[in-house]
């Protein structure tokens, strides 16, 4: 690097003996892994011994940001948490859009590496380049909202709720009203007796070429505002607007993923939400897309539900009460619970009762006791502590593994994989478990978006999934929100509509583009240019840090991120066997669906592994690692061979 852009400064915090020291990131790490989930996963190799129990004091959590976080580029409030996954035992990366990321960087740190465990409840106060350990006796036991109100208002905060304190396997963290929900990192905080982190400072966030950077952001924001998806559909209906679309494509999970269509889905749709409940739309800090829903709940304006929450607390439980979903969304947020895993586990418990395997007092179509159940899960009361361990654990104890909807142990989001098989492959291969975002969000180009690449056909899907996974990881690791990447679908298709002959033919042709995408993946450096229409993030990153970055390099960075995450899974003992979906999705046809509605995962996986350069066990080969410049991690493969 020829520029004067400073290398990221992290801090290593030891909770056991209450000490901290600065840790400048080596130049090599920054160049290859940049920041966010990628650098966080790489640092776990350095600081966390293999096969550490997640709740062991030696377990490490990395809270970090990307180079664009808080810099002023659009949708860059995101910060990231990396740890070992409570649900799967593999990698955990959880992304959140509160003010904490920006304030952490303004306080002088780009990340914090937390290790050890405290005896008494404490929280970290990061002010102006200094870290102090504060007693959290007053905060312990409080919900995320009350705990944050207890601290000075301008501080950026990151807090767990009662669920995290009670080590619920899918406990999350809240920053403001935003949640870093998935993967159960809140439970690791709880096991370390760490209530949370607060950060405040006034250090300016470094930008290598300020004038060019701000000029580009201006154009980028205008571009986002003029695009139909990020400038109209998302601000108007939020992600909740996907409910009706998914329902019409049979891709809305209903009754624990039994079928993909719910007759009364319109009652919990984004359109209904916008017409009857919405007071206004809101946003994370620095985001011009503004997809947040603001709704009224008992004289208070709270954050409204997302698509996943609406789908899983609605049709997936046989319910269609939008006020209930708003209420449960709020309850989950203040308790610090991930809505996706929580709702999916309860739906699984409902089916366990129907099949006569276990009774937790929850029934399909019964809404009145759900709030109480969620409170009991968060407080780990009686048998409800078992619900707090996730559907994989429940299915091991009570049976019903065929319809426990999880991948690697983490519950799937509300996209029915049998109507978007690429999404199914994404769920199965996602490093952090059944996650739609780490899994490539294939549903967006298959069933729920304007473009529809033949939802039930497997052609070209493995290559598209690899490409999308790399791209999403790259966007995420520089500190941008994934929604800012939705502009890669041309605006003209939105203008024409999903049923226009041109849109349909593009979807049809795209189902034969597998080899083209594969070539692009093999030689991403072909993309030696930057354009708004593919990856505005690359150019913005280049102007922010002064590092050379083209679209091709950017996707390669995402690929490196995906491989380092996978390598962490390999180190922790996960193999290709875990790249699987429950039998309900791979063998059973969708109810009322048709004879072609299964996910042909066995046929797609080998092609996917080949496209990624992995062996038959889903492990990166030596050649792939060398190609990506990760020769220093080859020792992980040596260790695996010794074990074998």
């Amino acid at each position, binding site marked *: 690097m020829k520029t004067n852009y400073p290398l990221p400064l992290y801090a290593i915090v030891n909770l056991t003996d209450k000490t901290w020291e600065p840790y400048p990131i080596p130049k090599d790490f920054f160049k290859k892994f940049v920041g966010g989930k990628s650098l966080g996963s790489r640092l776990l190799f350095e600081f966390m011994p293999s096969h550490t129990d997640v709740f062991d004091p030696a377990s490490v959590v990395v809270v970090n940001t990307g180079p664009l976080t808080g810099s002023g580029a659009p949708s860059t409030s995101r910060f990231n948490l990396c740890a070992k996954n409570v649900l799967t035992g593999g990698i955990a990366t959880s992304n959140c859009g509160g003010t904490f990321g920006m304030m952490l960087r303004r306080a002088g740190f780009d990340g914090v590496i937390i290790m050890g465990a405290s005896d008494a409840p404490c929280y970290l106060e990061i002010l102006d380049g200094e870290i102090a350990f504060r007693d959290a006796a007053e905060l312990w036991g409080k919900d995320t909202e009350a705990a944050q109100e207890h601290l000075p208002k301008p501080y950026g905060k990151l807090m767990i709720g009662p669920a995290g304190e009670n080590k619920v396997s899918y406990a999350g963290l809240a920053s403001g009203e935003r949640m870093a929900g998935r993967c159960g990192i809140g439970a690791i905080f709880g096991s370390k007796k760490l209530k949370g982190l607060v950060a405040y400072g006034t250090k300016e966030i470094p930008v290598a070429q300020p004038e060019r950077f701000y000029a580009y952001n*201006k154009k980028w*924001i205008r571009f986002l505002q003029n695009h139909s998806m990020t400038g109209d559909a998302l601000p108007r209906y939020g992600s909740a607007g996907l409910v009706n679309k998914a329902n019409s494509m049979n891709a809305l999970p209903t009754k624990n993923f039994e079928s993909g269509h719910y007759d009364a889905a319109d009652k919990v749709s984004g359109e209904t939400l916008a017409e009857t409940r919405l007071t206004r739309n809101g946003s994370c800090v620095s985001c011009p897309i503004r997809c947040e829903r603001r709704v009224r709940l008992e004289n208070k304006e709270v954050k409204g539900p997302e698509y996943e929450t609406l789908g899983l607390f609605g049709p997936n439980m046989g319910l269609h009460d939008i006020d209930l979903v708003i209420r449960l969304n709020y309850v989950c947020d203040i308790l610090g619970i991930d809505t996706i895993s929580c709702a999916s586990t309860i739906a699984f418990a409902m089916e366990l009762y129907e099949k006569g395997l276990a009774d937790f007092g929850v029934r399909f179509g019964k809404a009145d006791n759900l709030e109480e159940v969620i409170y009991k899960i968060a407080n780990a009361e009686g048998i409800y502590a078992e619900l707090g361990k996730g559907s994989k654990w429940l299915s091991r104890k009570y049976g019903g593994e065929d319809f426990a909807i999880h991948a690697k142990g983490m519950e799937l989001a509300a996209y029915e994989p049998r109507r978007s098989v690429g999404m199914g492959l994404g769920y199965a291969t996602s490093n952090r478990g059944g996650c739609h975002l780490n899994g490539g969000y294939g549903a967006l180009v298959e069933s729920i978006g304007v473009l529809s690449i033949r939802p039930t056909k497997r052609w070209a899907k493995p290559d598209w999934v690899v490409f999308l996974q790399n791209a999403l990881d790259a966007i995420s690791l520089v500190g941008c929100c994934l929604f800012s990447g939705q502009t890669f679908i041309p605006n003209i298709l939105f203008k024409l509509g999903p049923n226009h002959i041109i849109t349909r033919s593009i979807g049809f042709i795209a189902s034969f583009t597998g080899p083209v995408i594969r070539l692009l993946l093999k030689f991403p450096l072909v993309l030696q240019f930057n354009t708004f229409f593919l990856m505005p993030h690359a150019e913005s990153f280049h102007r922010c840090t002064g590092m050379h970055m083209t679209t091709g390099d950017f996707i390669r960075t995402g690929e490196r991120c995906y491989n380092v995450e996978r390598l962490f899974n390999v180190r922790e003992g996960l193999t290709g066997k875990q790249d699987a979906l429950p039998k309900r999705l791979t063998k059973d046809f969708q109810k009322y669906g048709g004879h072609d509605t299964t996910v042909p995962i066995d046929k797609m996986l080998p092609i996917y592994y080949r496209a990624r350069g992995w062996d038959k066990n889903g492990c990166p080969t030596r050649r792939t690692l060398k190609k990506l410049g990760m020769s220093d991690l080859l020792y992980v493969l040596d260790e695996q061979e010794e074990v074998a």
Partner: protein
Amino acid sequence: MAYSISETCSGCTACARLCPVMAISGERGRVHTINPKRCVECGVCARGCPKSAIRDARGAIPPRIPRKEWPKPAIRTEDCSACRMCVDICPFDALALTLPQFKGDIRVHAALSNPAKCVGCAQCMKICPLRLIEMQSPALPPEAKATAEAAK
């Protein structure tokens, strides 16, 4: 380099209440101190100090200015993307996003909703990613303008 407080401080806490970044600490009746790491050199404390006890980065004592003449942010609202950065950085809640004009209105913008609370620290101007905020001194009343011109 940062602002500092001299011994003439009477400990009236005016500066601590005005400081937009909570950099000033001290007990009532004692000499206050400014955290040099935190100070953003906005000068708000100095123009509000009744004892003229605050020195700027060069050691000079800035003049005291009555509060109604403090600068206020002027936002070019037509280009505002409502990204909320200025709203979140303002410690006094002087800025807020406007409410939708009609049901389903998605084009809102930031506005100075509570001018009485604004201290003119220019934090919002510095953070605006689109550089749409300018600090403007409030328009002087006509008589004052006339006297100023007459003085010229």
